[in-house]
């Protein structure tokens, strides 16, 4: 039983949870504050993962060079997606981003791209230099069920520090006059235009900045594992949206807490169900079915949330009273 809860606590602070949180902060900027429907955050994460891995493996760039290349590619992707769509109604951005992200996934997983992207097998062995930056001496750290190698500690410290950095960055941005303009755009872009603001430029800036957050998240996500094309499907984007809405779209901390709750609950329900099946308490399920059932449970939780607390956990109830 102890193990079940410590697994869940581990999931809360997993570097993967941090990566999801950062990507969700990006769509909080897009959707929660600017009103942009980005359904392709997976593609920004993929650019981070593949950009970083390919720059390291095929072009032998140093760590910071590989990071810079992925960020550059990410800004380029946002720019390309934004040029045709940001002048149009918000639904078009949704269609284009989801399509682009699927296209990107298919392109990197083709066998003809294998020399570069690894095709369906993906990529690995690109993290050596990152771990080379690790100042923590080799050894085992922690206590009880929470023991980590020096690498585990390093990636956790780095990724959660970045979560804090990006949450603060978002908080500063949305509380500034720049943030006021993008919130105005979310409410009514024609009104903002009539007040002398270049709406198109602001939407582009928001798309790029939120996309860059997705890209950083993509790099963090692949450092402790391998790059797998299957990870960058629409499911990834929708998980991020789930976390965002769970915490509250127009909040800063909501996406972080949303990501932690999401992975914590997923791990907890999985372990509880498995324990139930193993001990014969739950007889109507097999262990294979548990993996699927837990998503249903999370889905049910989300439905209840949307019904009873549509503004998200940290959202402001007052904001919803005016949406007729």
């Amino acid at each position: 039983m102890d193990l079940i809860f410590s697994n869940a606590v581990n999931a809360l602070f997993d570097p993967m949870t941090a990566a999801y949180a950062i990507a969700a902060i990006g769509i909080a900027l897009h959707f929660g504050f600017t009103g942009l429907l980005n359904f392709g955050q997976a593609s920004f994460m993929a650019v981070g993962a593949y950009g970083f891995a390919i720059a390291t493996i095929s072009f032998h760039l140093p760590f910071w060079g590989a990071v810079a290349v992925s960020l550059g590619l990410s800004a380029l992707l946002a720019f390309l997606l934004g040029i045709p769509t940001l002048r149009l109604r918000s639904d078009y951005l949704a269609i284009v981003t989801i399509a682009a992200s699927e296209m990107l996934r298919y392109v990197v997983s083709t066998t003809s791209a294998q020399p570069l992207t690894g095709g369906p097998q993906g990529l690995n062995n690109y993290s050596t230099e990152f771990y080379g930056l690790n100042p923590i001496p080799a050894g085992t750290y922690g206590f009880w069920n929470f023991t980590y190698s020096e690498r585990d500690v390093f990636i956790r410290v780095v990724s959660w520090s970045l979560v804090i950095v990006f949450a603060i960055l978002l908080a500063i941005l949305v509380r500034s006059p720049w943030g006021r303009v993008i919130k105005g755009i979310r409410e009514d872009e024609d009104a903002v235009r009539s007040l002398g603001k270049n709406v198109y430029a602001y939407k582009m800036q928001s798309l790029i900045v939120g996309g860059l957050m997705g890209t950083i998240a993509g790099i963090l996500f692949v450092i402790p594992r391998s790059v797998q094309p299957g990870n960058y499907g629409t499911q990834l984007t929708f998980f991020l949206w789930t976390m965002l809405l769970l915490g509250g779209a127009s909040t800063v901390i909501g996406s972080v807490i949303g990501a932690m709750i999401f992975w914590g609950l997923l791990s907890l329900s999985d372990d509880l169900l498995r324990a139930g099946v193993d001990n014969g308490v739950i007889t109507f399920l097999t262990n294979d079915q548990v993996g699927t059932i837990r998503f249903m449970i999370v889905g049910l939780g989300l439905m209840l949330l949307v019904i009873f607390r549509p503004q998200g956990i940290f959202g402001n109830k007052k904001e919803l009273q005016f949406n007729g």
Partner: protein
Amino acid sequence: MANEIAKGPSVPGVAKHDPILVVDNVRKQFGGLVAVDVEHLEIPRGMITALIGPNGAGKTTFFNLLTGFDSPDSGSWTFDGVKLSGVPSYKVARMGMVRTFQLTKSLNLLSVLENMRLGAQKQPGESIWAALFKPLWAKNEKAITERAEELLTRFKLDTKSGDFAASLSGGQRKLLEMARALMTQPRMVMLDEPMAGVNPALTQSLLEHVRGLKDEGMSVLFVEHDMHMVRNISDWVIVMAEGKVVAEGPPNEVMKNPAVIDAYLGAHHDSDLGADKIAKGN
């Protein structure tokens, strides 16, 4: 009055002594419908000009064209001597010509004060880099907030400044929109039906505010379809019908113009159709 403002008799397109906005051959077609077809029009500086006409006359389309929210098929216009045709809407506002909308566009989930602050120009913190360093924009923000609070007091919205704009009544939103437009420090204010959907008591106060704009030296052009509403406050009236300017002149003169009466009531309003004719027709 006519010769104080215009150089000649009150005919459509008459030249003004001191025009702020000069429009030439502006034409906009939606499919087969010619929405706007204005040959020549001059709007006088420092005056309140009303643009009236029946529903569907093309007033709002004309407004959208002038303010860059829609682009014409052909034509050009200048604002204070500067060519304005083809200039995007946000630049039009920066050049000192600000507009409001027929359907009020208050930014609902921003507070009333934030709505006002958004109207301010030259706030360096609106650049994404400067936004990160508060000392770069805090001083401007303070000045902007003071100006916003002054305007809110003038428009009697000061008690609402912390509330969401969504909580305001329809009339208060019109006031907020006008006040917010003034935050841009315009030289010319374009009001699209400022009185639409506002109760009579508030209409008077809105009219007062429009007069106040003129007293501050701004030129005002406002759209209205009720002729009688404009009589008291406008210095000059332009009448549009079916996309064209059919008459212009001082209010009292224009109200008597047969072309205006035709535009509002239809050209055959005084010819007797005859009860018999109608009965037989059925």
